[in-house]
């Protein structure tokens, strides 16, 4: 689906991504984990076209998509959700969903004066789809609620719902779990699996909650300090010493010595 080919992204001196390469298989739910500052979100933004990589190529089904603008990628079916939900607070859930489909007839202002009928028909279709989505996500009871009044978790569901309004190929989920209570997180998890099974979406998700990752993701890719550190099933990576060390933080020689001494001293 997506092939990351030795991509690097530098901000001034800092190497947010440092020659990382990996594959996201079609139809997979790939987990992307790693300690803070590992460059996960930067990787997402680079794939979604917010940044251009300093070096390296990104292939979407064999086509190099480096340099495409976000809305172009959007039309190619590459969607991303945000760590902090970006819903339209003053619009109802239904409207939030209905505004998603690109190039609606009614988005050209002169059509709103000249082609009322076509717009009506299209609107009917879009609304129907939106209602399907709300049912799929079990939030139909909120359809006419202002998105601003939703709970954190419901907003995340809405984010997910947006991706369902267009035939997404690849969906990048940035910490869907953040600030969501367990029960709702389960719902989100279910939704993701169903989308993956029933509609063949490919997912790539940044997540910190390991058992969530464990339940959903295969494979799991571990990034640390901008590089791909390990790759494999959730079990494999969690039992990988290197990964644990990376999570525990940077080692630095002389401090270790002190530590050893203190341990001998039996503090």
């Amino acid at each position, binding site marked *: 689906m997506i092939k990351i080919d030795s991509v690097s992204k530098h901000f001034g001196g800092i190497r947010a991504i440092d020659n990382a390469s990996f594959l996201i298989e079609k139809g997979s739910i790939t987990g992307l984990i790693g300690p803070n500052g590992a460059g996960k979100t930067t990787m997402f933004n680079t794939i*979604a076209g917010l940044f251009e990589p300093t070096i390296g190529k990104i292939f979407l089904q064999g086509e190099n998509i480096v340099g495409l603008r*976000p*809305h172009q990628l*959007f*039309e190619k079916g590459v969607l*991303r959700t*945000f760590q902090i939900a*970006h*819903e*339209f*607070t*003053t*619009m*109802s859930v*239904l*409207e939030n969903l*209905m*505004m*998603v489909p*690109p190039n*609606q*007839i*009614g*988005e*050209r*202002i002169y*059509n*709103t*004066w000249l082609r*009322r009928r076509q*717009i009506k028909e*299209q*609107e009917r279709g879009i609304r129907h789809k939106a209602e399907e989505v709300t049912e799929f996500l079990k939030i139909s009871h909120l*359809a*006419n609620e*202002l998105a601003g009044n939703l709970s954190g978790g419901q907003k995340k569901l809405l984010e997910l719902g*947006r991706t369902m309004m267009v035939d997404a190929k690849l969906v990048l989920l940035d910490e869907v779990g953040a600030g969501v209570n367990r029960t709702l997180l389960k719902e989100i998890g279910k939704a993701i699996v169903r989308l993956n099974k029933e509609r063949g979406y490919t997912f790539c998700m940044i997540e910190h909650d390991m058992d969530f990752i464990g339940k959903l993701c295969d494979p799991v890719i571990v990034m640390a300090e901008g590089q791909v550190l390990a790759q494999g099933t959730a079990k494999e990576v969690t039992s990988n010493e290197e990964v644990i060390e990376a999570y525990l933080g940077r080692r630095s020689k002389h401090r270790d010595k002190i530590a050893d001494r203190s341990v001998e001293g039996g503090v």
Partner: protein
Amino acid sequence: MKPKQRPFIVFAIMAAMLLIVGFVQSWSVALVILNLCLVSAIMALGVNIQWGYAGLFNVGIMGFTALGGVAVLLVSMAPVSAALEVGGGQMALAAVTLIVGCIAVVILYRAWGERLFRKTVTCLAVIAVFFLVHSFYGPASDAIEAVDPAKTGYLGGLGLPVILSWVAGGLLAAGAAWLIGKITLDLRTDYLAIATLGIAEIIISLLKNEDWLTRGVKNVTGLPRPVPFELDLQESPWFIDLVETFNRGALAGLGNTERADALRMLSMEGSGIFVKLCYAGLFMIVLTIIFTLCSLALHSPWGRMIRAIRDNETAAAAMGKNVTGRRLQIFVLGSAVVGIAGAMLTTLDGQFTPGTYNPLRYTFLIWVMVVVGGSGNNLGSILGGFLIWFVWIEAEPVGIWLMDVLTSGFDPASEFRARMLDNAQYMRLMVMGVVLLLVMRFSPGGILPEKTGHR
């Protein structure tokens, strides 16, 4: 009261107030107010498109109004052939050079790419173009302004029916807005505000000083009218008959001579009112058209997209919407509507007087209308236009009357009292400010707030 009824009620109150003026002061005063209320309502609609729909803070309204105004004279006045002969050709040449020059500069800027001195070179090119254009423009304008300065001294217009100028005003304003938007719309909110403030001032000073085009502060009077002149009406028998039928009761039982005099009197005041009614009719039509178009656009996927952009640009962009494009579109549309209103205003006045445009009246007052009426809500801004204009006009006599009462204790000759009486009219500025502040504090949505959520 239920939000559904609210508009009806407030508009009913508004109508009642106008009627009261009609009975207490006079019908022609009431009609004058009504006509300006209608124009203000259209302006408010234009500003509402920009601020209410898309959150663009444009304080250059005055400029676009004035552009609408100049369109009237450019379209409807008869061309001044003498001026065209002496300066027309060269002026055209200047215009052409200007356009070509600008294009050339842009091409140069692009072609130069990332090489050194890009900005310097571009600036130099601009300066060069400026002098080139000036070499044609200078003599041409002098020649034109020399042609019978007392009467003309300008190129005149196209001599087309004045109604067309309303469309032209819209187009002119739209064109200007497009240019300005291209430059300034990427700026941060309050930078944008200040930029538009400046543009308005520049447009005004252009209109004041480019005499060859607008006669500047010498003003252009006697603009053609879309409605008959009072005098013609008083001559025309059908109108006299009309008046007669209207006042049969009053005229009955009068001797022939008195009857004729009375009839003349009646048809005189009748003609005034008739003319104002014609204007009111025309304005009403325009307002209805624009209002319908606005509501159609707002309650549609387009409106939804615009509200989404206003609500959260990043997300809208991530949903594949072209944010910059839409903002520009909105800016152009809003300005066009303001331009139309500006043209109507000038037509109503029958003269173009660039000296009289001032930002308090033509920019900030409109803002008060939108905020008080209810930004984001078309009906709201129309109401705002009516209400605020009404207050703006009526605050003056009321203020003077108030002062008169307050200072009645002093002896009428006293210098203090005299000053208080002339300055009373400025109380309305304070009233406006206070109204704005109070509304923003106690009903931030305005009188008719925007309906958010599902439609």
